[in-house]
């Protein structure tokens, strides 16, 4: 079971290996906090949809399984959407349309179809945790890179914490704004994938 968990983080890493679920990865990682929030929201949906689907896998009819998966996933997405709106309204505004769009994240449907549907709930839970953690780590790393280069600070939490000053005042005033604009997202993920490939090949 711990094998499933570790495979989920590295061997089956949604973004670096399978290259799915790219939209939220690029869109919300303008800061480490947003990346973390998005990663945790997707992890929550992934864990519960995996658990439910695996628990009911013997009852779900084969030819109706995709619509059923979608309804189960959409239910948990709605739960996350409204929870965030109630407790962290600012984060909810920042992540915007990408929270309801978790429902079409091919990663989650892919794990439901490819793993949870033919494994017991214990394994499905570990897979959800592993895949979710792998996804969250990448989002957090991307958010970190883009926030530090783009704004010169790290881990700013709006309204609570003004962030660690990484490079000092002079840099903050003339930071690489490109990194928090959309093209910076493409560049960051390209380089992350390149570095990952470099190590995987060895």
């Amino acid at each position, binding site marked *: 079971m711990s094998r499933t968990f570790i495979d989920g983080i590295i061997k089956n890493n949604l973004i670096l290996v399978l*290259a*799915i679920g*790219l*939209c*939220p990865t*690029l*869109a919300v990682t303008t800061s480490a906090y947003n990346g973390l929030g998005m990663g945790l929201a997707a992890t929550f949906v992934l864990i519960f949809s995996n658990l439910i689907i695996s628990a009911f896998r013997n009852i779900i009819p084969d030819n109706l399984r*995709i*619509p059923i998966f*979608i*309804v189960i996933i*959409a*239910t948990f*997405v*709605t739960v996350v*959407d*409204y929870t965030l709106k109630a407790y962290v309204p600012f984060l909810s505004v920042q992540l*915007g*349309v990408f929270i*309801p*769009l978790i*429902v*079409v*994240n*091919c990663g989650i*449907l892919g794990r439901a179809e490819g793993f949870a549907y033919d494994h017991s709930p214990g394994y499905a839970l570990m897979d959800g945790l592993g895949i979710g953690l792998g996804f969250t780590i990448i989002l957090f790393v991307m958010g970190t890179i883009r926030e530090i280069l783009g704004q010169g600070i790290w881990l700013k939490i709006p309204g609570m914490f003004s962030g660690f000053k990484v490079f000092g005042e002079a840099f903050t005033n003339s930071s690489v704004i*490109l990194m928090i*604009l*959309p*093209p*910076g*997202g*493409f*560049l960051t*993920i*390209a*380089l992350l*994938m*390149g*570095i990952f*490939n*470099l190590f995987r*090949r060895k």
Partner: protein
Amino acid sequence: MDNLFLIFLSAFLVNNIILMRFLGLCPFFGVSSRMETAVPMGMSVIFVMTLSTIITWFLYQFVLVPLDLIYLRTVVFILVIASLVQFLELFFKKQIPALYSAMGIFLPLITTNCAILGVAFLNIDNNFGLLSSLVFAISSGLGFLLAITLIGSIRERLENAPIPDSLKGLPISFIAAALMGLAFLGFSGFMGLSL
């Protein structure tokens, strides 16, 4: 009139659905390695996006809002889009085989294309009326076609270029997309980015 033109310009160029809003990246990178798959995918997206916008708009305004069921919109929209795509596939297969052979294999992929669902949500978040929604959907689709055509032709060229081993395939396409995005940022002089 003015307003509609602004919506068109914003959705087509300034806030391009792929390069600025990051919606629909899976098909954008998935089928863009050749032009003969990139263009039909773009066409199918325009078509489905327009139809799904009309349907979800009416459903939202005349069913979900009056019945106070707004919290069900995620579930309802995705089911509507999935069934619409399924229906179109069957309809084309039976009635318009030429169109089916052009778009057929791309239609199932569109269900999980977040651009379609994303545009449906954005229309509601922006409080667009029916006409504005339609213009927004069509110009977003055109923006998708523009972006996927551009990246398709760049990737065809890239095949013969000397690229470091670890950047081959997806990473170099991301870099190309980043450069395209930079060029598109130039359009933001027309009006502000609304991300």
